[in-house]
């Protein structure tokens, strides 16, 4: 395989994994936009989504589409409940408290799944798919389906935010929650919506991730969750197109270091995460508010 083919192959892989990061990053960014909370349990919602799909595919013999829909419903309810039980009582408390609570919720979800299903990885029954070959390039149908699905979801979310009543209310609340409330917008409702949509996307991200790397374990949400968080920060936290951009960028960087750079430098795979995080630090040094972020001046 020549270098050009290898490069294009890795770009496709990067877009695929990047789209999953982007889906998860959207949840981080929407919640942060309105509540100013980094919901560290978000990666674990993704894990719960994968497990839910797994149970319905193995125990109840459902196909992956049914399992995906059930996972989405279950995670939406879970996200909604977590917000009401764990975060809402702390809404007026210092943000640090809510952050610590989020870490607590994260441990709670991981431990619960560990107790119920054990700590060992389980093989995820991803459907078989045929390979598509174009010249020397090859990719599976599932990859294409996953990428297309993610893009459709992101575009729908953008339409939702721009053109619906609830979407506009979310934009207003994320800019100035108090002013929005004084214009008749129920901030509670918009916060719940953000958690429901975020968790639904995380569930889809979880299932797509499990299809891409067909093995699930209770800690599987930690690394992708962290990377999605980085994606959100990289693009500019609180900004929805930023999360998408950050997700794709992260996926591309990761897969290019692992798959392309390693052709010249065998150790690159080991260094992949270090390279990723270095890029994050660099971007934030140059532009602390993220790529699409606006520099906010403090009011005097």
């Amino acid at each position, binding site marked *: 395989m020549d270098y050009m083919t290898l490069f294009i192959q890795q770009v496709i892989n990067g877009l695929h994994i990047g789209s999953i990061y982007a889906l998860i990053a959207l949840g981080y960014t929407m919640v942060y936009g309105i509540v100013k909370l980094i919901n560290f349990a978000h990666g674990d919602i993704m894990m719960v989504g994968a497990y839910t799909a797994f149970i319905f595919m193995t125990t109840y013999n459902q196909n992956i589409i049914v399992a995906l829909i059930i996972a989405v419903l279950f995670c939406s309810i879970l996200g909604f409940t977590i917000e009401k039980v764990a975060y809402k009582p702390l809404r007026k408390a210092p943000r640090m408290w809510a952050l610590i609570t989020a870490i607590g919720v994260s441990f709670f979800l991981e431990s619960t799944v560990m107790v119920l299903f054990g700590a060992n990885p389980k093989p995820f029954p991803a459907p078989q798919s045929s390979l598509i070959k174009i010249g020397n390039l090859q990719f599976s149908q599932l990859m294409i389906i996953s990428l297309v699905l993610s893009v459709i979801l992101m575009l729908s979310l953008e339409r*939702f935010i721009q*053109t*619906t*009543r*609830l979407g*506009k*209310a979310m*934009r*207003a609340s994320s*800019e*100035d929650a*108090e*002013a*929005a*409330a*004084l*214009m*008749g*917008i*129920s*901030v509670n409702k918009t916060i719940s919506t953000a958690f429901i949509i975020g968790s639904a996307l995380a569930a889809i991200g979880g299932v797509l991730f499990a299809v891409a790397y067909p093995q699930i374990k209770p800690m599987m949400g930690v690394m992708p969750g962290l990377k999605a968080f980085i994606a959100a920060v990289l693009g500019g936290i609180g900004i929805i197109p930023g999360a998408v951009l950050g997700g794709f960028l992260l996926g591309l960087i990761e897969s290019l270091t692992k798959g392309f750079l390693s052709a010249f430098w065998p150790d690159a795979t080991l260094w992949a995460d270090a390279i990723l995080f270095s890029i994050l630090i660099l971007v934030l040094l140059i532009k602390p508010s993220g790529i699409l972020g606006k520099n906010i001046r403090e*009011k005097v």
Partner: protein
Amino acid sequence: MLEVSKISVTFGGIKPVDEFDLKLNKGELVGLIGPNGAGKTTVFNLLTGVYTPSHGTIKLDGKNLTRLKPHQIVKKGITRTFQNIRLFKSMTVIENVKVAFNNQLHYSLYDRIFNTVKYNKQEKWLHKEAMSLLKIFDLDNEANELSTNLPYGKQRKLEIARALACKPKILLLDEPAAGMNPNETNELMETIRLIRNKFDITILLIEHDMRLVMAICERLVVIEYGKIIAEGTPEEISKNLKVIAAYLGE
């Protein structure tokens, strides 16, 4: 129509508003004045549900609003503008107004996804209403500009237009003339007169600009240290010794 009786609020031993009474009659334009730190904005925050009073009741047309949340109070008919302009900066002029119509729209996500007649009808109605509101304030030519790109005076106007989009019975204006030069203030007075002509509305405003207050208010309420020290027509207030003492110090 609005009856506020003996509302107080306490913040850790301080009482910024203490047994405050207020009655607004339908269609009135009342000024709430007082020295800095007298508790004027706190009164607004109590009336709009940002703070919950520790004592007292707030009633609008006989309905109790005392413990309602801000967005519920808006539905009952009280909205406000802010001392420091708080427009939604990333939105255009018309979007700012449209957001405030939120409560008056009744379509579901289903209607949006399938682009139903209901959705299209309501969005059309919304656009028409928003545009005609902007037209009244002479903002229709800037409808698609970002709200931050408007000059200061127009931002003030837009904030008032946004508040009116909530279809309030009572409009609270928090220092609408703050930071304005005399010309802009004159224009603002015109705007306020215009609102009274075009809308069936009661206005309560906080203002430091005495020229504006004396020119347009029908009745004034003066507070100091959270308590009412005088009430009356602008002429009466301008001669009231207590008020003069409060403003100038004894």
